[in-house]
């Protein structure tokens, strides 16, 4: 590992010294006997906590109001139709419906008439 990066620039930077801690920090942190003092509660923190509490309360109230004024959910929901016929029959019916529609709209496909006849014969109609 190369720990010696560009020295001249690094040395230029190193000639600056980081600022020391404020004079009051030691006395605020340590009592005369060297024991640690508790940090004072900053107003900034209190304001932040109060703001968070107000926002939370507002959101809660908003949620409750929304809930109380919302329309009731629909009660009567039709049950899903249960299909008892076999799948093949339904497919045939569907194809027949398509072919009838194609006939109505005068779509001319070469084998449409033959297929329709087959399907109708199959369905017995």
């Amino acid at each position, binding site marked *: *590992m*190369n*720990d010696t*990066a*560009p020295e001249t*620039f*690094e*040395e*230029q*930077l*190193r*000639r*600056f*010294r*980081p*600022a*020391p*801690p*404020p004079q009051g*920090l*030691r006395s*605020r*942190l*340590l*009592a005369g*006997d*060297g*024991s*640690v003092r*508790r*940090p004072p509660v*900053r107003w900034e923190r209190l304001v*932040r906590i109060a703001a*968070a509490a107000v926002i939370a309360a507002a959101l809660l109230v908003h949620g409750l109001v929304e809930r109380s004024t919302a329309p009731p959910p629909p009660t009567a929901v039709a049950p899903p139709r249960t299909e008892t016929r076999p799948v093949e029959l339904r497919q045939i019916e569907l194809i027949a419906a398509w072919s009838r529609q194609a006939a109505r709209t005068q779509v001319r496909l070469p084998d449409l008439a033959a297929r329709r006849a087959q399907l109708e014969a199959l369905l017995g109609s």
Partner: protein
Amino acid sequence: MNARDRHSRKTAPQATAPGSGAPAALARLYDEHAARLYAYACVLARSPDEAEDVVQSVFLRLAKRPGRMVGVENPRAYLFRSLRNEVLRQRSRWGRWRRGDAAAGTVHLNGYVTGAEAQFDAEAVERAMAALPPGQREVVFLKVWQEMTFAEIAALLDIPANTAASRYRYALEKLRGLLRNE
């Protein structure tokens, strides 16, 4: 002991280890390391006020559980790790309401100390440092002003040493460019 403390803590107690619980030991620890810790806190925290708070919190935790320092081989590494954890803890606590946390913090310099004529002033260096990405800024601070090796930086930041070295290289290039344009 977790894996993070491995670099700074040994199981055998050291004769010189502070943390016996005596207030005098804590005061001595403060006098030895507070300046470096505060400088590091300025790099990590959003403001000098917050940096003071973080330093105070680190010492408060030590005062509550003085046994933590028993057996610590490298008090500086341990304190730097504690300080970094404290900043991350506070940031995760309040981060949701704050924007620009990651971009916050820079080194606060006292001015040009010794040597030849300065090519740039302290404020320009502070501004250039503030313009770096946080990861690079931290590595530059630890390497230049704390004179840590890449291995020590890697252990502190939980990154590979090669990553620390490459961050440092990129950061120095950026710093050069920024200071040239000042």
